[in-house]
């Protein structure tokens, strides 16, 4: 187990370094740090002076090294649009995105598990067919379209739910603006969370169902029947525990898709989170912010994937004991 963990962490570090190199190259080639610092109105001489001072004429590797050191200290540059350090901007936007992701994940887990298990145990029943049919349709509707449809039906036509922004938020711990504690905030969270979960949900249902169906055909499940165990125990303990393992691994990967979809969802709902920030930074050519988003998101991926691998190693007894 220990060897396994070390190997995974080592791989994670390598990937992070590669991401940082890519991120830095983009910044180096397309960004304009002088503009980030002092705006547009500088004379060419002043510009050169500043460039010299900032060390922008040094070789690539030296600049990269500096970037790395700064990054590890939490300094990723300055957003010229917001006129604030990038880290500050990202941190201020993060709670919005995180709460959204949290609610959407809740929906996905709470709904996909029972539906997937049901559809696996009773594949021919009408409810199962409806679930599976709904899944294919759900997978075929792009996230932003679901969002638009929701807005059209519930905001424009029915007027039940608000169509943009986060609504009232409450400041927790001095920096976290939360929409979870106010009724208004929660109302604003409903549609974006549903939209965000709309592709993950069918994917998970299909995944759980197919894994579980495979497990239900296995020898040990048959043996469990032969032992005369209660069906509930067979389904939830024998079958589901084995279904969980592959679902965890695949589920971890789906996180990537989830983050991509926050960008789309936040754009539609004008949700002031990291996703919409990213798109705005692209349109404004705010390279520092754009690159930092890539690096931060990259870091989140690497961390989550590594964690998922480690958790898998803990949960699966064959890995744990054999120390693969």
């Amino acid at each position, binding site marked *: 187990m220990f060897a396994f963990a070390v190997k995974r962490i080592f791989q994670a570090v390598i990937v992070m370094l590669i991401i940082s190199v890519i991120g830095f190259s983009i910044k180096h080639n397309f960004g304009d740090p002088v503009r980030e610092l002092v705006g547009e109105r500088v004379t060419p001489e002043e510009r050169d002076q500043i460039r010299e001072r900032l060390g922008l004429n040094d070789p690539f590797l030296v600049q990269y090294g500096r970037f790395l050191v700064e990054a590890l200290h939490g300094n990723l540059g300055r957003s010229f649009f917001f006129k604030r350090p990038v880290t500050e901007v990202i941190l201020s936007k993060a709670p919005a995105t995180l709460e959204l992701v949290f609610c959407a994940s809740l929906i996905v887990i709470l709904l996909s598990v029972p539906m997937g298990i049901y559809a696996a145990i009773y594949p021919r029943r009408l409810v199962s067919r409806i679930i599976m049919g709904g899944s294919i349709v759900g997978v075929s509707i792009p996230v932003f379209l679901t969002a638009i449809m929701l807005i059209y039906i519930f905001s424009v036509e029915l007027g039940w739910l608000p169509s943009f922004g986060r609504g009232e938020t409450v400041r927790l711990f001095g920096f976290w603006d939360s929409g979870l504690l106010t009724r208004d905030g929660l109302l604003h969270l409903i549609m974006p969370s549903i939209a965000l979960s709309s592709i993950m949900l069918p994917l998970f249902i299909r995944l759980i169902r197919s894994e579980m169906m495979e497990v239900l055909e296995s020898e*040990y499940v048959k043996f469990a029947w*032969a*032992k*005369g*165990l*209660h069906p509930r*125990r067979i389904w939830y303990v024998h079958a589901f*525990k084995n279904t969980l393992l592959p679902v965890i691994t695949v589920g971890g990967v789906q996180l990537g898709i989830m983050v991509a979809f926050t960008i789309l969802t936040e754009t539609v709902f004008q949700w002031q989170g990291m996703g919409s920030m990213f798109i705005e930074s692209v349109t404004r050519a705010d390279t520092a912010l754009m690159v930092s988003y890539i690096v931060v998101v990259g870091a989140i991926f690497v961390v989550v994937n590594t964690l998922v691998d480690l958790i898998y190693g803990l949960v699966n*007894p064959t890995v744990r004991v054999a120390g693969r």
Partner: protein
Amino acid sequence: MDKLLSIEHLNVDFAMRTGPLRAVNDVSLTVDKGERLGLVGESGAGKSVLGFSIINLISKPGYIQSGRVIFQGTDISSYSDEQIRQVRGNRISMIFQDPMMTLNPVLTIGAQMRETLHAHGSMSEAAATAICLEKLKKVYISSPHKRLSQYPHEFSGGMRQRIVIAISLLTSPALIIADEPTTALDVTIQAEIMDLLLELCKNENMGLLLITHDLAVVSQVTQRIAVMYAGTIVELGPTEEIIHKPQHPYTRGLLGALPQKASGRGRLNQIPGVMPGLAKIPVGCPFSNRCSLVREVCRSTRPTLDAKKSGNQVACHLVDQG
């Protein structure tokens, strides 16, 4: 005449898109209390299906089309799901072929043993553990206490099968159905496991239905043998008789094909052709298209399993014809 198990004219079909295919054709068998019956035949002959049908555990799309399974005086083939659940693992236990696939890899041995006890009665954890330890000792597993918290992959193949046998003993069943229990094991371990089974059945007075294609194993462990071919029982009699004085042409072919019986030049005796798949079983006697003694009547009429002069039951038109 209180038979432990009595299978009466059992027909098992598989529902295919093109129509039902018969996997078990009009089979009747009995097992006495404490008797050891061997069910022998090639792969695909229907032996496992027959074994599973006793506790109504046939894989889809199989189902019992007609016939009865009478166990301890009651017809269990018409039992509801809950009723048959109470019989399985309780009064009839089953042992499968490959213990690595039979034991759930993510649950401890202890969990998999105790759950059987909890499914068939309520008892305290301590009482359940005690019974588990007792049965593990009966199958000669060392340090049983430690074993309970270990996982299946930590054991060797032979030990895993012993654990499976221990599980089957937990509720002191009246009948054990063993489906190819040693096929997946090394040859050296096979003998140990079979000896163990034999000893346990004798000591606990349990009935045993041993399903296998291994003639050597069946000759050492069982008291009677039923030979199965293409879904039908073709011969049935005491082990000694079947092994040394087979009467049905197929049984003769089987025993003649043993390496020991090979002729001087070292060629093995084969039965020409292959056993037909379910869809291609000939009308009349199922063996008619491979039998060297075949006559007209064999091709037109299905022989029934009747008692012949020798005392065995044989399904052949030509035995006792002189």
